[in-house]
Structures are given as C-alpha cells and as structure tokens.
C-alpha cells in the first residue's frame, strides 16, 4: 500500500475499523515507513491520553441532590387528580387577574399611542387607569389622569392592541397563564 493511502486510513486503523486484508497492508507499511509509524504512535498516544482523564465525581450527595431537583422541576409540578379541581379554579382566577392587568397595560399603551398621534402637543402623562364596564369586558373605559374625556376601546380594538403586546412582549408569560386562548375567543 502506498504511503499517501495510509494516512487516509490511519484513523480507521487506530479505531480498529478496517477489514483484515487492509489492516494487514497497513501493518506492513507501518513496519517499513518511519513517518507513518510516527503518525500512528502519536495517534495511539493521543487516544491513551484522552482515555486517561477522569471527570471529577461530584459525589453521592450531589447525585441525590440533583436528581431530586430534577424531579421537583418536572414530576412534582404535575398536579395529581385530587388537587386538579382546586388548581383549575386557581388557574381561572389567575387568568382573570392577569387578563385585567394586561388590559390595563394595553390601555396605557393605547393612551400613549393616541397621544402620539392626536395629542402630543397637550403633553399629557402617559399613564392611565382603566375601569371595566362589564365583567366580560366587552369594552374598556380608560380614564386619563388629567383629561376629562374618556377613551373607549371597542372589543376589536382591544384585541388588536393585545395582539400587538403579545408580539412585542414575552409570549411565555402569557402562555403560562393560558391567557392567549382567552384573548382570541370573541366574547
């Protein structure tokens, strides 16, 4: 076998992946050629060197700790059936609370954008309070701190606004509370 062919198969030779006849040809060449033998020996040395390293063992205490931590982050977060009903109720309450806070953020933004487009000269503060006229929030009445006029957002506007916030903001927070599904069902 030619010298230049050996270098192509040397990796496979070191990893013991060659068929018998090729293997013998390489062995024979290695006996004759000091360059290839050098190459082969340093490959063997590297292999032994890499195998000799031992990752430090953090110890039994750590393994127990980390596996309980993993279970706490996963399994123990999954509610069992007996607590499911309570959790469902709690979740609904959370949803409602989060929906309200989102709407108030939306309202503040609405005031901000409205003031940019229509009332920038008036220099009104950018914060706003919101009051819901109805439990189902068909429309939101937003009152500006100073202004005497109210801004009424229709249900559709409200949705568009919230969609915008979702696109801008972190969706994970919204998903977490399952608000997303609430938003896009038309009431």
């Amino acid at each position, binding site marked *: 076998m030619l010298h230049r062919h050996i270098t192509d198969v040397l*990796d496979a030779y070191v990893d013991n992946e060659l068929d018998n006849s090729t293997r013998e040809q390489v062995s024979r060449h290695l006996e004759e050629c000091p360059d290839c033998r050098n190459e082969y020996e340093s490959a063997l040395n590297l292999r032994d060197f890499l195998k000799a390293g031992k990752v430090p063992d953090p110890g039994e205490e750590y393994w127990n700790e*980390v596996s309980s931590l993993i279970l706490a982050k*996963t399994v123990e977060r999954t509610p069992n059936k007996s607590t499911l009903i309570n959790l469902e109720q709690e979740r609904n309450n959370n949803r409602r609370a989060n929906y309200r806070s989102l709407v108030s953020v939306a309202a503040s933004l609405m005031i901000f954008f409205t003031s940019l487009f229509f009332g920038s000269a008036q220099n009104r503060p950018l914060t706003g309070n919101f009051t819901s006229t109805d439990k189902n929030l068909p429309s939101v009445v937003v009152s500006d701190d100073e202004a005497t006029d109210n801004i009424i957002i229709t249900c559709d506007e409200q949705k568009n606004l919230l969609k915008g916030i979702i696109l801008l903001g972190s969706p994970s927070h919204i998903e977490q509370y399952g608000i997303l599904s609430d938003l896009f069902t038309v009431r």
Partner: protein
Amino acid sequence: MQDSIPELVKAFSDGDNQAFAILVKRYQRKIYAVAYQMLGNHLDADEVVQETFVRIYHKRQELKHVSNFSSFLIRVAANYSIDLLRKRKIHGELSEDPASLPGNIQISMSRRVRTPRELYEDKTMMEEIIKALEQLPPRQKITAVLHDIEGFSKTEIAAILECPEATVRSNLHIARAKLKKILKNRLSKE
C-alpha cells in the same frame, strides 16, 4: 427484576414518573461527564444535567417514536452544551477553577475512597485534556469527546448529532490533528 431501558422509556412516555426517576439516576453521570468535558467546569455541567432532563420530561410524548433513548438523551445534552459553550464564548466567560466548587460538593468529593495522589492525578490530567479541548470549535469538540473519550461509535455519533457519518469522520480527523499539535510535547514525552 430490573426493568430494561426500553421498558423504562416506554413506561415513562406513558406517564410513569417512577420510570423517569430511574432513568434520571441511570443517565445523570453520563450526561455530566459529556457536559463537563465540553464546558470544563462543574456549574455548567450541573446546568446541562438538569436542563437535559427537564427537556426530556417535556418531550416524553416524542419518546414513543425514538428507537435509541441514549442517543436521544445525549443529543439533547450535546446541543444544550454547544449552546452554552457558544454563549460563554460570546460573553468571554472563563471556565471556573475546579477548586472553587461549592463547599458541600468539595466535601463530598473528598469522601470518596481515593488517595489524595490519585485525586491529584485525575484532576491535573483532566485539566490538561480540557485545556486542549478548549481550542476546538464546538462541533469538533463534541465529536472528539463522544468518540475518543466516551467511546461512542461513529454511527452513534452521526445519529446523536444528526449529521452524515462522513462529517463525523472528518470532524474527528481534524479534531485529532489539532489535539496532536496542541499536545505535541506531552505526547512525544511518553
């Protein structure tokens, strides 16, 4: 008496949390080792171990279509390690000195039945390997770690990294050539 891995995996994907707990116990060391070699410190390896199993837990439905659990698991760990490695490089964070491990971990390490000399040799050898590996780009590094240290076959690595076997071969070849160059003095001394 002991369940086989495929049985455990099936039970886990069917919602058996006990099976998941056993799988965690069985594979946590392997993942830690791969991650440690990739990232060179305990804290990052610990993060990879935890995150890998959290991800696997959320992917448990997918496991029904997975033929090789171990490859699947190592893939998640390898990908997360590579992400973390890139993040660390961007932020220029240096690897932590192993001597600065949290106190309780150092204590439990010293409880093992190993002589201080053995411990010292393990530690310095591993440090040298990690220093050499540090010079490799992530894909070459993970290939070298999985093949030359962890003993996975090229076919297995191709499955783990979802790339052709030829890519594994060439990455390994380049990685070894670089490592030989980096470790030239060390390797010729022996």
